[in-house]
């Protein structure tokens, strides 16, 4: 691999800024163009509605031959996201394809918030709660959204 930023990464970054995805903001870090600061708005009619979740996204050297590394920085109560913020999403693992982009990855993550899948858990205790008492799990997810993901970001 040669040095310098691949044209694809430059193009994706430009397109993300020119045609932003509704509810998603992805800004490259000043000192590392492969590292993005991401804000994802909780989808409507999900327990995460009204919240804004911070994620970090990193494009590895092999990108787009291998998937971006993405992690939630904001605490979130979700059966497919563990307490370290790691996300269980097939396209980030074995279903990755170089036809996918930063944009489609973040949209998939937003969709995962709308459709938690407790049968394929990453956070076992959360998944268990989701299966045993879904209404209560949703209530906890709402409380966590209010507490940890206020739409006005807290000063850090």
């Amino acid at each position, binding site marked *: 691999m040669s040095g310098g930023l691949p044209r694809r990464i430059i193009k994706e970054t430009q397109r993300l800024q020119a045609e932003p995805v509704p509810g998603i903001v992805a800004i490259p870090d000043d000192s590392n163009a492969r590292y993005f600061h991401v804000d994802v708005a909780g989808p409507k009619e999900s327990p995460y509605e009204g919240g804004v979740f911070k994620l970090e996204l990193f494009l*590895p050297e*092999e990108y787009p031959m291998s998937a971006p590394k993405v992690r939630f920085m904001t605490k979130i109560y979700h059966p497919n996201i563990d307490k370290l913020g790691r996300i269980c999403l097939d396209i980030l693992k074995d279903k990755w394809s170089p*036809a996918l982009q930063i944009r489609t990855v973040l949209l998939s993550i937003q969709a995962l918030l709308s459709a938690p899948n407790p049968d394929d858990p990453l956070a076992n205790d959360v998944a268990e709660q989701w299966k045993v008492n879904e209404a209560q799990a949703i209530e906890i997810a709402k409380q966590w959204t209010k507490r940890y993901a206020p739409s006005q970001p807290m000063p850090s």
Partner: protein
Amino acid sequence: MGNCLKQPNADDISLLRGAENNQTDGTDSSLLGPPPPYQVSGPMYHPTPNISRPVAQLTEEEQVKIAKRIGLINQLPTGVFDGTRKAKECVICMGEFMVGDTVRYLPCMHTYHRECIDDWLMRAFTCPSCMEPVDAALLSTYNSL
């Protein structure tokens, strides 16, 4: 969905932290400083999509698999882009096809720069756009001849 519980996935965290703190952990060498010496000699192979190893570190089984894969890839038709096809952009590099570019056609008729798609096919034998397994499509093409 992949079964994430059974996969060691601590790498997600270390990579991201590594990127931020500028610590080397071997996999993102060019970004994080000079690569370790073993990465500079010879081409890298990908016995599975997320594993990169030089040829000397491959098992015999992996070498056979890679040799077969190269054989299959070479059976896929290639051509020179002449501007008459519908495809405008290679979705892998996001570069526009220019007249004279060498392209490869997959059985599903998706078209890519040869260099871009060959790199991917060495990792996973599926079409990036439609996820059609390339070998199954190849076999069915042969059977229908």
